[in-house]
């Protein structure tokens, strides 16, 4: 936790950070969608640095370009200008070093949950033995509470369970960066809370740099070290960044009872309302 605070101080006070601490670096990022009515500039001159072992949440009005930015980081969407680097290296297309948890669970419905996770594990650990790979997949499925559903067809699982498999699949390939695009947006609030807890529990253990889009202010505060606020499009960029200085591991209760909680909340809501 201490190291996180140091990173954050560095970013805010000097505007630069030690290179080796930067996991993800977005420089002068630009995205243009050609439309019949001419080019639409979604993002322009967007700069953002995300540190190793940092959990960043991103909020912004719907349509401002959050998904666009995240899918560019994932390498699934072409970059129109500027660049994105992971550990100092410019990205070229998608790859398993950046795991993605999509808004829709995006499991292969004809596969079992184990097969879905194995699809990634087989790809990333081709030299491990079959039983080692099986163990990895089962370990993460068990972490998301699906030890009884290894051999259930993905299409037979509930939405929440499917997203759980999605989380297991993403962690099991041991990515450097985890990208999450409103992963719990389609779930009811009870399931959402459960999956947030599961996510943060695994994350506390693995400390994989995470970038998560959300439209839920409480979720943004609960999970994040920093909340990044994007301005409304067109030509969206980073509007403001809020450090969340709660200790980890956090519990929902301790966060809600913290004196700073409503201050943070007000800050974010004020931003969104202007």
């Amino acid at each position: 936790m201490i190291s996180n605070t140091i990173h954050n101080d560095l970013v805010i006070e000097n505007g630069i950070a030690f290179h080796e601490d930067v996991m993800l670096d977005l420089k002068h990022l630009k995205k243009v969608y050609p439309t019949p009515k001419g080019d639409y500039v979604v993002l322009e001159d967007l700069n953002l640095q995300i540190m190793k072992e940092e959990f960043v949440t991103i909020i912004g009005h719907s349509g401002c370009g959050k998904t666009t930015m995240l899918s560019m980081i994932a390498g699934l969407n072409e970059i129109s200008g500027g660049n994105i680097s992971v550990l100092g290296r410019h990205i070229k297309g998608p790859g398993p070093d950046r795991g993605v948890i999509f808004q829709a669970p995006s499991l292969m419905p004809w596969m079992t949950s184990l097969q879905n996770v194995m699809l990634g594990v087989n790809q990333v650990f081709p030299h491990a033995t079959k039983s080692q790979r099986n163990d990895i997949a089962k370990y993460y499925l068990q972490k998301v509470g699906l030890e009884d559903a290894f051999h259930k067809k993905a299409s037979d699982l509930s939405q929440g369970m499917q997203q759980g498999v999605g989380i297991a699949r993403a962690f099991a390939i041991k990515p450097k960066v985890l990208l999450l695009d409103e992963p719990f947006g389609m779930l009811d609030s009870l399931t959402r809370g459960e999956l947030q807890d599961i996510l943060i529990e695994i994350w506390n253990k693995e400390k994989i740099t995470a970038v998560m889009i959300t439209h839920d202010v409480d979720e943004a505060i609960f999970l994040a070290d920093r909340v990044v606020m994007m301005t409304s499009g067109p030509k969206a960029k980073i509007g403001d960044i809020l450090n969340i200085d709660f200790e980890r591991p956090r519990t929902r209760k301790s966060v809600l009872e913290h004196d700073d909680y409503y201050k943070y909340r007000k800050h974010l809501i004020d931003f969104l309302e202007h």
Partner: protein
Amino acid sequence: MKQTVTLDRVTKFMGLGFLMTIKSLFTGDLDKEGFRNFLRKVVVPIASIFLFIGLWHMGAKSLYNIEADYKIEKALTEQGQEAADVMKACIASGDISCQPNTLPSPAQVWESYRSLLRDHQIIKADKDAFAEKTATLNAKRIAEGKDPITYTGRPSFVDQILTSLKTVFAGFLLALVIAVPIGVIIGLSKTLRSSVNWLIQIFKPVSPVVWLLLVFMIVKTLTKDSNSDSAFIISFISVGLCSMWATLVNTAMGVASVDKDYINVAKVLKLGPVQKVFKVILPSSLPLIFTGLRITLSVAWMVLIAIELLAQSPGLGSFVWEEFQNGAVDSNSKIIVAMFVIGGIGFLLDRIMLTIQNAISFNKTSGI
């Protein structure tokens, strides 16, 4: 109880759910809702069958009367009163020499059905006797390296059905083997898709007759000096070519329209092309491929009859055609028997495909 549940699922799966309703009628566990279901799914269909047969009977009867009146009238104007009376008496006596030739009645069709079965028994017995008689001779001929003597008698109705089924399956397999791989390749590439689209659009509506002629031209030359069964080859290739288009188009569509999320997952995991096709693209397009195959099989069965008829290859098609040209008293009713058999087999084939389709697809569709 458990057994009932699985049986229930199996029959529902095959689109034969009404069987369960009949069963629960006998076992006595039929509630109010179940009773309504029973009315809707069992009583009404059976009533409609009787209604159909009744209407058919009356229609056939009035057609018979029209034809009979016309015959008597004709005898009267051409040969006078005496001939008309003879004709009238002849028709009334039921003598086959002067029966009006028109749509047969349900009873006549039933009678023809039974006579076709009897005929089959006779031919089968004849065949068995032949096989027995020639068994030792054939064994000797085979030992000497000569072709065995085969039965060359007339095929029975059942033999014709089996021949037709054989041809349709051969044609269907051909369609599958050609259309699925090509469909996958076309579906994968947008450029390829737009460049061969015109070809598909032009060939798809071509009539079975033209395909038959085309295949005939080619196969005739190719099989000139071999004594293979060219009628069979010609008809199954034509059936395959006519019917493969639905599978081709559906496969290409299925492959081209794989959910973007799945493709993104494949991209993030950096799956190789082979893995991408076999683990992601093919499974996700299987439902559409099977929809295509189901259409292909029903088209194959439909065009088969016409193609057999034209190619003079044995089977139900030539059975119908021969009966039509034959013009015997019971020819018309035999044609109707063939019609029901053709329809029934078509229905069964479709049910089989639907069952496979349901078993394979991950988002269950209920059959119609």
